[in-house]
């Protein structure tokens, strides 16, 4: 498949735009010196990914991504940033000094994963995407073939909920504990 063939496909133009948005905003997530900006660039990267999922006709996953990530997780992140008073000023050291080895490691991982993808899947095409995966199919599969992982995930969420509350709750001081026991009696 030549480059001209690739460019001729209109979906590839959409892909190119989305990939550019995702790559640039992902780069800004890891290089931005402002924590709030990093979180907002993550929103952009996730929105681009949702667009990519729509391109791959995975509509339900795309909207789940928008709802759960952009709607809930990022809000949680912004709460975390505000509560921990993360440094948001211009001249704060958000990175430590050893950037070069980290970049080296990341680059090597990129080479290995991208290289193995290139050798394994050379010219394989994604075709016949059709009208997209209907949510009905996903719902049926989720409650038939994948019902056990589905239940396990619901337990994981419950455990995370309880764990989060238990961790973040302020423990009562011994004096308060005494006072409460006194009022119970």
């Amino acid at each position, binding site marked *: 498949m030549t480059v001209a063939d690739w460019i001729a496909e209109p979906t590839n133009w959409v892909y190119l735009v989305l990939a550019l948005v995702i790559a640039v905003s992902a780069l800004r997530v890891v290089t931005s010196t402002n924590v709030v900006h990093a979180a907002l660039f993550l929103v952009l*990267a996730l929105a681009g990914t949702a667009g990519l999922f729509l*391109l791959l006709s995975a509509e339900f996953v795309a909207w789940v991504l928008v709802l759960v990530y952009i709607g809930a997780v990022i809000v949680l992140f912004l709460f975390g940033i505000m509560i921990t008073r993360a440094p948001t000023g211009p001249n704060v050291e958000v990175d430590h000094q050893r950037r070069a080895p980290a970049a080296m*490691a990341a680059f090597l991982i990129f080479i290995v994963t991208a290289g193995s993808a290139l050798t394994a899947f050379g010219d394989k095409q994604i075709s016949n995407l059709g009208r997209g995966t209907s949510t009905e199919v996903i719902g049926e599969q989720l409650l038939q073939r994948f019902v056990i992982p589905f239940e396990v995930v619901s337990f994981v969420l419950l455990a995370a909920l309880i764990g989060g509350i238990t961790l973040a709750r302020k423990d009562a001081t011994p004096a308060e504990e005494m006072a409460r026991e006194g009022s119970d009696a």
Partner: protein
Amino acid sequence: MLLNQFLILGALLFSLGIYGLLVRRNAVMVLLSIELMLNAVNVNLVAFEAFLQNANVGGQIFAIFVITVAAAEVGVGLAIILMIFRNRTSANIDELDLMKW
């Protein structure tokens, strides 16, 4: 569309996440990088699902599971960071060297 264009984008997102994970000092920003890496996994899963087109849409369903687990992870992670911040008045992970030999 080639399958590889999605796989390489996923690899790029994953390695950017690794870079952020290694280089950031603030624990919240480390969590942001972890989200990037999980997102790379989702891209791969959905791309393979579109490529294989199985009747049981396993790729998309596992992408949904990854999103769910990521949400749980962020909740617990931020609670832990909050605890660390309360105890040490700093969320910088390079200052947490209590157990360093």
